[in-house]
């Protein structure tokens, strides 16, 4: 009887110990699983369930990052059905790392952030005053060449004029650069803006194509070709040698 009680006590003790051990193991497993989920990485040399590709659907949540260390499962780490179904590649989480939902969330967070901490009321761009040049006080629409143009401001000689910008190379001469004077730039072949005096106060219109400048440009280009030819042909044509006596 006494020995039977002792035996029953030991059996109960084993059951309680086993239960406690099970609880500890279960708690540890839950902790590890939660930690793995938080980190988004796989386990390192872990057991069969938590390892690479193991555990079927569960492992997909623990994926996202590569795992190091082999699994203890009997299957191959690469190419097995379990791995392919639950591996890091192609799973929803791993896919979201590249342009997926998480990236969008990050973008949203970035968009709400601010650069620097400047709160003064001064300009952020280091400039003062109004944008660009002075604004026009009046606006004109001029019929020119069969089309209606809204004039723009043209400063010339310290005065402001209305000017038509037709969109061609003639407009370039409103603000000429030095290379417009060379025949290599298309603007060279267009005339300078000219003033049209009308009843409303006058305006500038872009110069048109100039045949004179075309001929002039051709002559200049021919001259350049000739000079280059003479330079590379030995400093001069031998057909025109002068013989002199000194």
């Amino acid at each position, binding site marked *: 009887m006494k020995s039977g009680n002792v035996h029953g006590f030991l059996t109960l003790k084993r059951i309680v110990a086993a239960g406690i051990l099970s609880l500890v193991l279960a708690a540890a497993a839950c902790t590890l699983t939660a930690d793995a989920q938080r980190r988004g990485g796989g386990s390192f040399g872990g057991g069969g369930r938590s390892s690479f590709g193991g555990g079927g659907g569960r492992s997909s949540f623990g994926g996202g990052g590569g795992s190091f260390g082999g699994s203890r499962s009997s299957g191959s780490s690469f190419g097995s059905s379990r791995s392919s179904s639950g591996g890091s590649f192609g799973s929803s989480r791993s896919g979201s790392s590249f342009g997926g939902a998480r990236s969008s969330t990050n973008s949203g967070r970035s968009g709400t952030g601010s650069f620097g901490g400047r709160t003064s009321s001064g300009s952020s761009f280091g400039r003062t005053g109004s944008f660009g040049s002075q604004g026009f006080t009046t606006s004109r629409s001029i019929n020119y060449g069969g089309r209606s143009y809204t004039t723009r401001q043209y400063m010339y000689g310290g005065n402001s004029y209305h000017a038509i910008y037709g969109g061609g190379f003639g407009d370039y001469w409103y603000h000429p650069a030095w290379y417009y004077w060379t025949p290599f730039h298309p603007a060279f072949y267009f005339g300078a803006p000219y003033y049209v005096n009308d009843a409303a106060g006058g305006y500038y219109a872009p110069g048109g194509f100039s045949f004179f400048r075309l001929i002039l440009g051709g002559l200049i280009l021919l001259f350049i070709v000739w000079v280059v030819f003479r330079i590379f042909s030995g400093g001069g044509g031998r057909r025109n*040698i*002068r013989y002199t006596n000194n």
Partner: protein
Amino acid sequence: MNNVVFQTGGDWDSTTLANNGQEVLAAQLFIELRAGRDDFGDPDRGGVFDGGEMTAIIRTQDDPDTPVGIFPGRIELTFPGHSLQIENTHPTFAFEFTRVWFNGRDVTDKIVDLYVDINAVDNVVQAYVVLYKAHWLGSDEVATYNII
């Protein structure tokens, strides 16, 4: 290595020839250089660098039948109003090592012809230089300078 100096004031009395500081009693001083020509023999820029040929000899009064070479060495010729220096210090008188100065200017790359013949036996005195002058815009010029 010779260092020949020829000077003349325009007559035989003022004409002297020396080599390495020693007067040379000569019957003839003859130098002929042809260079600065293209493949057809026409004048071209380049001077000595186009290739050519040169003869430079002195015939002494003692042995006028045996020409004595001036080069390798250097010869300076002074005429009334003009001066010439010709130098070739190459041991075997390779033509491309010739350098020519005319009135103090290096005309090595412009020389077409150089001719000096001071012949006391035949009483012949002649010297001229022909230079090729390349011009950028105008026609090139082959200028002949009559020295004496």
